[in-house]
């Protein structure tokens, strides 16, 4: 009767002396898995512009219809997105846009921290998507 009690005390003492496994969130973070589907980002081409050719496939495939694209052509006749709007507050992070993209321009990144007080601020433009690249080296 006494020995199990002492065993229990020994176990808790060894736990007491071991290092806590707590991850103290704002200071310490866990990197999400490689295939984590977080906030989207744009891949850049050699000029530092988006690789997106504004084909509109992502807009079509998006189940929550949160992508809106206006297409334009430059002097060489290359298509580019005049406006590319992605409403992250409506996005369900399914990753279909990434799958649909024929030029590998849009990807779902590993960033998951984004808090705003207003829904409108969740509307991402081309520049915002390019900026998100910084979170996904």
């Amino acid at each position, binding site marked *: 009767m006494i020995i199990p*009690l002492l065993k229990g005390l020994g176990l808790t003492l060894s736990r007491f002396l071991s290092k806590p*496994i707590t991850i103290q969130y704002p200071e310490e973070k866990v990197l999400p898995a490689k295939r984590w589907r977080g906030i989207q980002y744009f891949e850049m081409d050699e000029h530092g512009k988006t690789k997106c050719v504004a084909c509109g496939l992502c807009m079509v495939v998006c189940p929550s219809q949160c992508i809106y694209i206006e297409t334009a052509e430059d002097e060489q006749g290359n298509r580019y997105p005049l406006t590319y709007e992605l409403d992250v507050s409506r996005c369900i992070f399914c990753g279909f846009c990434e799958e649909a993209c024929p030029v590998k321009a849009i990807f779902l990144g590993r960033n998951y921290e984004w808090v705003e007080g207003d829904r409108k601020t969740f509307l991402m433009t081309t520049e915002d998507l390019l900026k998100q690249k910084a979170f996904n080296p």
Partner: protein
Amino acid sequence: MQLLFLLIEIIVKCVVVFAGLMLCVAYLTWLERKVLGHIQVRYGPNRCGPFGLLQPFADGIKAFFKEDLVPGRSDKTVFVLAPMISIVAAISIFAVIPFGNQFTIPGTDWVVKLRLADVDIGLLFIFGFASLGEYGIVLGGWSSGNKYGLIGSLRAAAQMISYEVALGLSIIGVIILSQSLRLTEIVHLQGGGFWNWNIWYQPVAFILYIICGLAEINRTPFDMPEAEAELACGFNIEYSSMKFAIFFLAEYAHMITMGAVAVTLFLGGWQPIIPQLGFIPGVIWFCMKLFAFMFFFIWQRGTFPRLRYDQIMKFGWKILLPLTLVNLLITGLIVSLRG
């Protein structure tokens, strides 16, 4: 003039002991959360100040600003009185605990004895007040007009009274050995190294005292009166704000006094482990021993599950009480045979 100095000495000692005790109580809550946290492989409070050291004050401020509710169906007078009884009983015990020997104030021949009161019936006083503390819990649960509170206080009454019998009997062995109820005398008899401590002469009584003491102060595994899982906090369910805080403080103060009595009776009070270490002040030895007890109380709380109510009663009456009686009988026999 002499009288005035005496008065000043008493007041200063009272204030220092009271403030020290309250500070200890505050930090005991912090220590408990910290130790329990580490036992569960997490950190415990660490946001409020370095290592969460300001946590007790944050808790105090929070408790102070909460709404002070008195239930409509409660017995108002008793409801307000109950936490006061609890805290008074818990703190009063510390008046007779000798936490150090004595020292002379440098430059004068004024001897300061490090205890508030050195009464002949110290042990009797302690157990009298310890029993008084039960009234706080019993009345608190009863007067709040809540069924959980009532069940909690009924359990408290049954449990504490049955364990008090064994608690009182377990220390009679020590009284037989030291032939005195005066705590300073009991400590003096244990002087001259750890081999003279009562724990070696009364090991069974020591273990029984710890077990009964845990039941007496309602610590896990005997925390029947406030069994969170079944009674939703038991006797203090209707208490909020400072009244709850006072119950909380009383519980921890009671824990400290229980530990202090154990140190005094069994571990040689302020006496050093070996006489060669006598240069370290007695107060520090006392605090170190007390800390060991506090750590053990918290440690075992993080280890053992709560007993069932009938198990507690069975354990108290059928195991602890006979054991204390046997221990008492053997002690008395040996002492009388040795003359």
